[in-house]
């Protein structure tokens, strides 16, 4: 299992994501200016402040050369995980629905939060149980998930809301406590919390490992999770 972690100018948590992925498989960095995904089985777009969050978070990174490959990889069914700034990039690129806005508090927030697994039979949450509560840190200024009401209804009905902030744990005012969503095809997933910072008991919880393990299981045993929740197009 080989993970590819994209690195933009300004990425901060790419090495953290690399180290987390290496607990589960092999991992390499994918430089923003390259057009080569180096044969990886899954792509991670990491957290940080790509391009300084200039204009809008993720707005410039989405046009990096490597993102053309990532978009094609996603269209071909490859697994793509966007963490925090990565989630912002994927929304800006149209690979995920919705947008991330400034936190209601207007301030950066770091907090260990409890999340509820809303949908478990996916390539990203397969190692979790439905309704399981996991503990993962958030750290962001622009993490308030937003989509128009009709879109939200559609997402929820289609089972595309995979993670929610547990009651009382919403750190940024995201609508309907949404912490992470996937695309219609269920192969692209974005979340604001940082699973790569929850993989080592020495530095915090280890619940984040489940997301990486789910991805590996999905790649190593394709078809395990397909069909189960195929949405009607």
């Amino acid at each position, binding site marked *: 299992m080989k993970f590819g972690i994209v690195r933009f100018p300004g990425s901060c948590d790419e090495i953290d994501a690399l180290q987390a992925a290496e607990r589960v498989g092999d991992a390499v960095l994918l430089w923003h200016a390259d057009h080569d995904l180096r044969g990886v089985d899954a792509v991670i777009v990491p957290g940080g402040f790509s391009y300084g969050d200039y204009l809008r978070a993720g707005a410039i990174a989405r046009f990096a050369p490597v993102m053309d490959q990532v978009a094609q990889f996603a269209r071909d069914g490859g697994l793509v995980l966007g963490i925090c700034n990565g989630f912002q990039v994927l929304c800006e690129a149209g690979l995920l629905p919705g947008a991330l806005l*400034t936190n209601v*508090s207007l301030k950066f927030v770091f907090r260990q939060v409890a999340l509820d697994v809303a949908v478990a039979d996916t390539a990203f949450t397969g190692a979790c149980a439905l309704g399981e509560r996991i503990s993962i840190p958030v750290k962001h200024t622009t993490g308030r998930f937003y989509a128009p009401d009709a879109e939200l209804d559609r997402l929820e009905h289609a089972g595309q809301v995979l993670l929610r902030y547990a009651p009382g744990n919403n750190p940024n005012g995201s609508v309907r406590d949404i912490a992470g969503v996937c695309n219609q095809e269920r192969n692209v997933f974005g979340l604001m919390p940082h699973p790569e910072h929850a993989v080592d008991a020495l530095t915090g919880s280890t619940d984040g490992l489940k997301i990486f393990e789910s991805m590996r299981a999905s790649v190593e045993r394709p078809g395990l999770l397909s069909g189960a929740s195929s949405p009607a197009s």
Partner: protein
Amino acid sequence: MRARILVRPKEGILDPQGLAVERALPALGFTGVDNVHIGRLIELEVADPSRLPEMCERLLSNPLIEDYEIIEDGK
């Protein structure tokens, strides 16, 4: 030619920055101020102004959450 683009949050989306400013003004003695919204001003010189809308749609604004207004200087 010079153009200015105003990007503002779409109606109906919570704008906490705007609210924060709206609340701060009375404390400084400015009453009767409502409906504050905070956006962005982008100034540029462009050879072909007909391409500005496309620039706004693709990069300068996020159409899901923002509206934009193009002001060409001299108009």
